[in-house]
């Protein structure tokens, strides 16, 4: 109950005291031998040029000359300093000035 109280209070500010708890469902977490999974990208980039171009984009106070990257061409473990724009099919990621 202490754990419930903590989580409920964090989400809904407080717990209504003095009522009997009702357990509606149990969730079981079981352990077993883990299969060897990989989450490496199926279609890893076949090279290409990560930097697609540059454009003027507004960050906070003024326009910045901002690099635009092709996400599919980014190499693993690379680092990009914001401001930057990373484009892909489903989404565009904007890195702010203080974001890496």
């Amino acid at each position: 109950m202490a754990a419930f109280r903590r989580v409920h209070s964090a989400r809904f500010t407080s717990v209504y005291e003095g009522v009997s708890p009702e357990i509606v469902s149990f969730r079981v977490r079981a352990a077993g031998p883990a299969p060897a999974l990989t989450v490496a990208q199926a279609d890893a980039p076949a090279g290409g040029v990560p930097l697609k171009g540059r454009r003027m984009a507004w960050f906070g106070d003024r326009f910045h000359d901002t690099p635009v990257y092709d996400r599919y061409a980014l190499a693993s473990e690379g680092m990009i300093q914001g401001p930057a724009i990373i484009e892909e099919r489903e989404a565009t990621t904007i890195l702010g000035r203080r974001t890496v």
Partner: protein
Amino acid sequence: MGAAGTLRIRVGVAAPIAARITPATPITEARALIEADPVSLEIMWSRLVTIVEEMWQAICRTGFSLIVSEAQDLACDILDAAGESLAQSPRAMPVFNLTLPRAVKAMLQKYPAETLRPGDVLITNDPWLCAGHLYDIAIVTPVFLDGQLVALMGTVGHVGDIGGIKDGLKATEIFDEELQIPPAKLYRAGEPNDTLFDMIAENVRKSEEVLGDLHSFIAANAQGGERLLGFMRDYGMQDLRALAAVVQGRAERAMRDAIRALPDGVYHSTVSNAALGRRLDYPLKLTVAGDEIELDFAGAPEQLPLGGLNCTYSYTIAHGSYPLKCILSQQVRGNAGCYRPITVKAPEHSVLNCTRPAALALRTRTGWHLAPNIFRALSDAAPDRVQAHTGLPVSVKVHGLDAKGRLYADHFFMGGGQGASAAHDGKSALLWPTSAANTSIELFETRSPVLVVEKSLIADSGGAGQHRGGLGTRTRMRKLHDDGPPTQASVAAEGVGVDSPGLFGGLQGGAARGAVLDRDGNLARDCGAGELVTLTDTSRMIELRLCGGSGFGDPASRSAALGERDL
């Protein structure tokens, strides 16, 4: 970028926003600052609505009764420091949002802003100040920034029980309907008012559930208050008056523009209902003059001495104004501004403006007839916007003791067929002009030892028309066990013996009926306009048929394709 192709982003911490608007900023300057940046204004306005929406979600997740958590008979609101609505929970219940400001202003009169403290929580269910019957309890929590009252978070919800007579149609005075809570402090600076809590608990059925609902309202207000202060911090806004003036002003302008587009004129209409078997007429004079609308219900019947069918003025204003919002500025997020161009008049001591000690628990059975009357009155001026009569919703309340002697009392909400309009057929099983939800059968059956034998759409019950009304519904339920103690159920189908013709030649939908049936579905007793039925065993069941919606336009002009789809 990680090995798996994931983008890893270390988010930079933004510098805190400097205060842009403080209590000392002149209001015109602060308004100009907000108006100068329409993109930020749109984001801020949306975020206010998100805050109230989150309050509403919190109650649906944590409320105890089915009527609150499932049927969603509640509304949340952010009000400015003057008690005017700033943002409303978008899904339900507009009538609560419309009545709440009156209650909040009365609270502020009794407990002036400068006497309120952080941790105070106010309460009332005064039907003349708030939502028109005692079940609807308003919980209001002041929000402070640097010791200044900046806003009030409000919730109005229909608790599962408020004590009093079970057969509401037999009530003659509000005293029969039990617990009246005048504007009061439920918490004082964070300390619960134990006496008031005990008084409430002692006077209602299933007190644990009622107090659980109240707690969820209190918690939602607290959560909304925290979010609002976060919002103000994020935008460097230490005072909300200018933002309130901007969003209320814009909502008001949108409503005035929509009204101005209607042809000026005086429009008349009458609807009738059946109160305890007697036909009552409700004449309406609706005046469109420039950018304002006045509804005058002069000629409404005298307030009724029996049956709890009386509306308070506060409730009548809400039910008169909200249908106009629905058809004139539905794209605008609701706040006080939407309603400023609308005036509602109803003669004192009438059924639409009752005086103490009138009984009023079942006032929906009167008030829900106002919307179709307003639409009928406006049908020539705005034929493309109005909607024909909707088959009115019904709530069955079951009471009793189970085999172990535990008391049960639960509401089961169900909707009828929506009225058709120029553009659409009506939808089926819709709760309108309330915006509550149909109660889940499965959850209802877990709370009360009752079996819902059938819930179905009634074939061909939509009123014919170029567009047809939605289908009415049929619900049958009985005791689950032959266990001895009786189950009492309110069987009060709304619309029995009521004429609700469609618009522009559309026809009335299927009729309402409340009845007791035998096990095989044969009629044992017709309950007429309503009665409290006692079921002693499983050989009898109750049945409620809700009206189908009325049609719109001449049925002969219905397109062949639509007609084919109906078959």
